[in-house]
């Protein structure tokens, strides 16, 4: 519209020839080698918009409950990430720094946050209420035996320095609040809280011969009834394994069954109170003593929030983790959960507001002399946008030398409802591309 050079020849500044090869055959090689590695991905604007909205909703809930954001390094010392052997080294993407120290990309947040709490935040007021959003990285074994790295997004909380059933209740009610706030409850499917207790399960397993314990524990975690029924196990071990697999269902009936078994009565009392509070707050609970999370640092309740057959959040109590990172080996109880935004976004219906990609207005200087007026108009309109910033309140400036019909085609394609055509004297008229 207002005639100027494309500027492409200047776009890379001096020294561009060192990393830019204009030959077509080179560019095709470059493009294939610049794909993200397997398991990683680019998030395009529309996906980012949905994710940001979800994070904002969760952040509001976290803050309402008194939680503050913490950001820990993506890269940590490997020994920090392994959490005293609770996390398998082969699941961590590893690298070595210049001094030969083994580092890793975090496979989960809890270890890093507890490390920060036990060192940088030690001696401060308790309990600590912390929340996070970010990426985690895993080395996953594929079916054919090779490993592939994967990047996941996670949002979650850690409550450090508070033990007991009331702290458990705070975390689970916060989780319920999060799930309600993002709209899972209002979808055509509801959600269920699967709730286990590692300490109760382990107290039942303690009667199993030590040689059979690992096999029985694995069979319980994987719901492998066939193994427990047919493997050459001591009969007592088989019966205890099958008994634990049977301790699943409505909290009332499972708690009644547990009352007949050799388990610590105070744990049972706490669990009963917790289930009662959850029921009063409308949370559908399946009490499941076979729920053994894969992370070995859990010591108390463990849980999964599930909807439409998928895990949308998981967590548990870890009362022995803090001491691993505390210089004085001080013990502090801890509990937390992780929400899985990738799964939540897959289950939630697309939000028409978020899906609306268009901006409100496109400002077009009709002649070079109209550029200052166009800039001023765009600035004024942007200031007038008092609503929370979303793409729909945006004001764009036309930057390319395009004919009016091309500009209108662009506006239609980007769903921009208004175009302001600005004259040299600052006057403008608005059109609405069909």
């Amino acid at each position, binding site marked *: 519209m207002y005639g100027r050079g494309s500027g492409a020849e200047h776009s890379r500044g001096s020294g561009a020839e060192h990393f830019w090869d204009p030959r077509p055959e080179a560019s095709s090689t470059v493009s294939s080698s610049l794909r993200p590695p397997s398991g990683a991905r680019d998030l395009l604007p529309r996906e980012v918009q949905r994710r940001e909205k979800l994070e904002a909703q969760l952040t509001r809930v976290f803050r309402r409950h008194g939680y503050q954001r913490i950001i820990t390094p993506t890269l940590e010392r490997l020994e920090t990430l392994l959490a005293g052997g609770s996390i398998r080294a082969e699941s961590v993407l590893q690298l070595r720094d210049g001094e030969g120290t083994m580092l890793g990309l975090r496979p989960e947040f809890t270890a890093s946050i507890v490390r920060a709490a036990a060192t940088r935040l030690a001696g401060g007021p308790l309990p600590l209420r912390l929340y996070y959003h970010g990426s985690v990285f895993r080395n996953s*074994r594929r*079916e*054919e*035996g090779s490993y592939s790295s994967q990047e996941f997004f996670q949002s979650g909380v850690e409550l450090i320095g508070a033990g007991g059933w009331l702290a458990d209740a705070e975390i689970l009610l916060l989780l319920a609040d999060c799930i309600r706030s993002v709209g899972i409850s209002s979808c055509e499917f509801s959600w*269920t809280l*699967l709730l286990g207790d590692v300490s109760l399960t382990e107290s039942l397993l303690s009667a199993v011969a030590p040689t059979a314990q690992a096999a029985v524990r694995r069979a319980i975690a*994987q*719901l*492998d*009834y*066939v*193994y427990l*029924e*047919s493997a050459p196990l001591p009969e007592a071990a088989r019966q205890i394994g099958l008994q634990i697999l049977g301790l*699943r*269902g409505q909290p009332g009936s499972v708690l009644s069954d547990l009352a007949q078994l050799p388990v610590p009565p105070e744990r049972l009392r706490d669990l009963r109170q917790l289930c009662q509070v959850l029921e009063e707050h409308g949370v559908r609970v*399946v009490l*499941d003593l*076979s*729920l053994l999370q*894969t992370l070995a640092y859990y010591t108390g309740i463990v849980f*999964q929030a*599930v909807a*439409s*057959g*998928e*895990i949308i959040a998981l967590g548990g109590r870890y009362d022995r983790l803090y001491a691993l990172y505390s210089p004085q080996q001080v013990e502090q109880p801890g509990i937390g959960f992780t929400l899985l935004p990738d799964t939540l976004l897959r289950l939630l219906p697309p939000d028409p507001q978020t899906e609306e990609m268009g901006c409100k207005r496109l400002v077009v200087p009709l002649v070079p002399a109209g550029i200052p007026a166009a800039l001023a108009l765009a600035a004024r309109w942007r200031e007038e946008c008092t609503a929370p910033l979303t793409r729909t309140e945006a004001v764009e400036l036309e930057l390319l030398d395009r004919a009016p019909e091309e500009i209108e085609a662009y506006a239609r394609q980007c769903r921009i409802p208004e175009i302001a055509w600005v004259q040299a004297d600052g006057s403008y008229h608005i059109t609405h591309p069909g």
Partner: protein
Amino acid sequence: MLDGRPDSPPITIALAKGALLPEAIQCLQQVGIDFSRFLDPGNRLLRIESPTRLNGQRYEALLVRTHDVPVYVEYGQAQLGIVGYDVLRERYAGTEARVAHLLDLQFGHCRMSVALPQDSPYHSAAQLPAHARVASKFVGCAREYFDRLDLPVELISLYGSVELAPLTGMADAIVDLVATGRTLRENGLIERDCLFESTARLIAHPISYRVNQQPIRELITQIRERWLGSLLVGG
């Protein structure tokens, strides 16, 4: 919630095409769930609902390729599946199983074995030289087995007629499913080592089972009484 009410959604069972299908259908018929339409030569449907119910609970079935049964169950598109243990061992070789193993249905008996040519100088898998070539459709199971033996071998993945590999000199041994051993003998092979025995298994999507176990438990009770019970009496 799958609580057996007439208006609750059906429980979906993934069934494997092929050798296990007739007995899988027979097993379910014994407990009052009818997918016999899949055996009709003119049938083209891959998804059908049983005209009969078990305790008021509706059931539907998906007819899929054998190796796809655990996939449909793992991803929750089917809450249950009936599939050979060999398929499960292959899919989850070296990893944690992502389906629940609920019941051994005691049909489809076979075993995963190492077979060598009759004129081979080696009489067991452990005697094979390092980097021997082993052909199989079940490379996951084979890898797991040879790793346990601490024997490095070159695994050749084939999709059919594995017995040909030693005949043509492409492989020194094979790992394959054996029922009677007749095919092996006809091709000059001899079964030397058994990796594991295989039968048909009832598997479940773990989360669906944890959340809605009641109707599935009822189904298992019926299968134990009417199917496994009849096998014991008959056997």
